[in-house]
Every structure is written in C-alpha cells, then in structure tokens.
C-alpha cells in the first residue's frame, strides 16, 4: 500500500517537475497576492503583526486550490485515471500518493514564497520556529488531503474549477484558523497555545482516515 502510494506520488512529482505547470502558477499567484495585499493592508502599520499571519495563510489557501485541482485533473488526458483504477494499485494508495504529491508541491510553494512574505511584511518566524515548522507541515497535509479528496469528487464535472473552491474553503477552515493562530503567535512572539496543534493533528487524523476509507467508494464503483 505504502509502496504503491509512493509510486504514484513519485510519478506525479516527476511529471509536475517536467512541466512545472501548477508549481509556476501557484508560486506566481502567491507572490502577486502578497504584493496586492500590501496595498489593501499597510505592511508598515503598527498592528501589522496582528494580521499578517492570517494574510499569509489566506494567500497559501489560494495556492492550495490551484495545486489540489491538478491532482486528479492531471489524469484526465489519455484517460489515465481509468487505467490507474483498472490497475492493481489499491484506491487508498492511489489517493494517498496523490495527496502526498500535493503536499510536497504545496509545501514547496509555501517555502518558496515565505522569504517574500517575511521581507514584504517585515516580520520574522524565528520565535518557536520548531512549532511553526510543525504547524506548516500539519496544516499543509490537512489541506492537501482534503483538497485531493474533493478533487477526486469533482474530477468528472464540467465546472470542476468552480466547484472545488466552493467546497474546500469552508471545509479547511479549522486547519486554516489553527495555522493562522500559530503563525500569528510566533510573529508576535507569544506563547503558542497547544490547543491549535492538537486541533491540527485531530484535523489531519480525521480527514486522512476518512479519505482512505472512502477512496474505494469514490474511485471504484
């Protein structure tokens, strides 16, 4: 199961690396949004430390929609999804592989855009950096799993690109709120409430388990 998931993830990452379609688009959107937000909210303002964490994750969530949308959509040309479903790769492994590839790509975009954020908004995330890193990984995994699941549910729809954001944004709210709070606490050099990390962990466990359990239903029959 893990070996199969890894095959799928490696294949996805390799083909993404060849074209860099969603990587480039997501990175460009992230940087442009960071720039645009600097006009809406003055990065030099006194209270910028209060809201810049939220702004960062909002920008990331836009990038996430672009990346997870590609996850299953990249299998549509040449009917690759059908070929994969007919293969001995279990649906759960296919799903986990796709979620993992989405996780790696999204994390790469987040890290690539992070310096721009730190410079534009004159903040630092060195306070409690270990917890911040953990929250990045946990929130990104949660978003990738949820987004990949909804990507699978909407992959055959004509209005896929429209439906996906409508479905995922409200659902990923708990993970986003937790990530915003932790990032904000670090920027303001405050203690990071443990409750947010617990919420993120719970979010990841619940949705990963549900997704793997239901992958069979979504992908076969």
């Amino acid at each position, binding site marked *: 199961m893990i070996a*199969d998931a890894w*095959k799928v993830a490696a*294949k996805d990452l*390799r*083909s993404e690396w*060849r*074209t860099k379609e969603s990587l480039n688009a997501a990175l460009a959107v992230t940087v442009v949004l960071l720039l645009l937000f600097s006009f809406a909210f003055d990065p030099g303002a006194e209270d910028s430390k209060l809201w810049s964490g939220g702004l960062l994750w909002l920008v990331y969530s836009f990038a996430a929609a672009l990346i997870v949308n590609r996850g299953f959509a*990249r299998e549509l*040309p*040449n*009917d*690759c999804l*059908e*070929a*994969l*479903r*007919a*293969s*001995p*790769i279990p649906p759960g492994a296919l799903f986990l592989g796709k979620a993992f590839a989405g996780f790696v790509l999204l994390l790469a975009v987040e890290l690539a855009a992070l310096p721009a954020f730190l410079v534009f908004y004159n903040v630092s995330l060195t306070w409690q950096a270990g917890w911040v890193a953990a929250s990045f990984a946990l929130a990104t995994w949660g978003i990738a799993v949820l987004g990949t699941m909804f990507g699978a549910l909407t992959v055959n729809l004509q209005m896929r690109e429209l439906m996906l954001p409508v479905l995922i944004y409200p659902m990923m709210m708990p993970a986003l709120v937790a990530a915003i709070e932790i990032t904000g606490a670090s920027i303001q050099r405050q203690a990071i409430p443990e409750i947010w990390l617990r919420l993120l962990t719970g979010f990841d466990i619940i949705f990963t388990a549900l997704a793997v359990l239901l992958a069979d239903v979504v992908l*076969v*029959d």
Partner: protein
Amino acid sequence: MAEPLVAADGVWRFFGDFAALREVTCSASAGECIALLGPNGAGKTTLLKLLARLAKPQKGGLRLPAPERVGYLGHGLGLWDELSARENLRFWANAYRAPASAAETWLARVELDHVADAPVRQFSRGMRQRVALGRAFLHSPDLLVLDEPFTGLDARSVTLLQAVLREALARRATVVVSSHQIPEVMELATQSWKLERGRLQSGVTQ
C-alpha cells in the same frame, strides 16, 4: 470443461434506475477470444468496465482473475505525455507487479526502443498507440479487456495488435474485445456475446 476464467452470474448494473446491464450471465475459459457485439448504448462498455474492475455489479456475482492478471485497453491510451515511453512502461510494469525488464522487452516489441527516452508528447499518434499496446500487454495478463481498440488505430498498430493478440491466445489468455470494425475481430474470435438493451442474447459460437 475446465473452470471458466471469467464468469458473470446474473449481473445487473444501473445508472439511477436505468439498468445498463440486465441479468447478464456469461463465462469464458482460458484461450477463448470473445467478440462483444451490439449496437451503441447496449451496455458493451459497461460490461467491459465491470470486467476491468472499473465498476462493481450492483446485483449478481462476478468472477475475475486477480487484478495484476488483467490487462485493460479502453478508449484512452493511459499514458502521461510529459513522461518518456520508458518511464511510462516502467510505471505500469511496476504497478502490475511485473519486472522492469518487461518494460524493456515491450519497448523493443513495439519497435520504439530507439526513442524510448523521448517524452510521449513528441510521438506521432501511431507511436503512442503502440506504447499503449505495450502498457496493456507487458505483464502477460490472463484476461485482456479491450474496449474498441481498433477504432482510430493506424495500419501498423492494427497489425501489431493482431499479432500480440494471437500470441496471447496461444499462451491461453482469455480476450474479451468490443469493436465496431468487425472483420479484424471476427478473424480471431472463437465466440461472440451479443448485447441488446443490456441483455445478453444467446451466445453464438463460431
């Protein structure tokens, strides 16, 4: 008679309340080549999808070989354009638990070993079809499910497909194939199943 390799027993499949397959009962043994016939919308693709495990019957029983012993070639090629022919076939060999050498063997078999490292995107239509043939056959499946493989194939691919199908039948694989271009299928078929409005008409053995 030997145990059939594939057997459907009163299989139903619905879209909503509309029955695409109605109580389909059929079986095929090793070495048989079945031509699946019937007009558009009779349920041919639905039945082939059940045989390829792309869907489950809602009623009735279905017996199939293990997933790694089944090969499926549908309307789509099942290849990634950004990856090379070798990468594509290696992935599928790996997915079907076949050795990586199978990918190399089939690259040579479909006469594409000289361009194996070029991305499939750059291939002509006929070359891509040959890679797809390699994908469906490289794990020497016991059951081959082919959904209209002859539509849009170029002459070279048709010849190749007929040759590999003959080989597969010679090693006693079972083939179920649907095609509108009847002559090529009929040449190989040992039996035909005719679907009419989701029902299987009594089988005609050649």
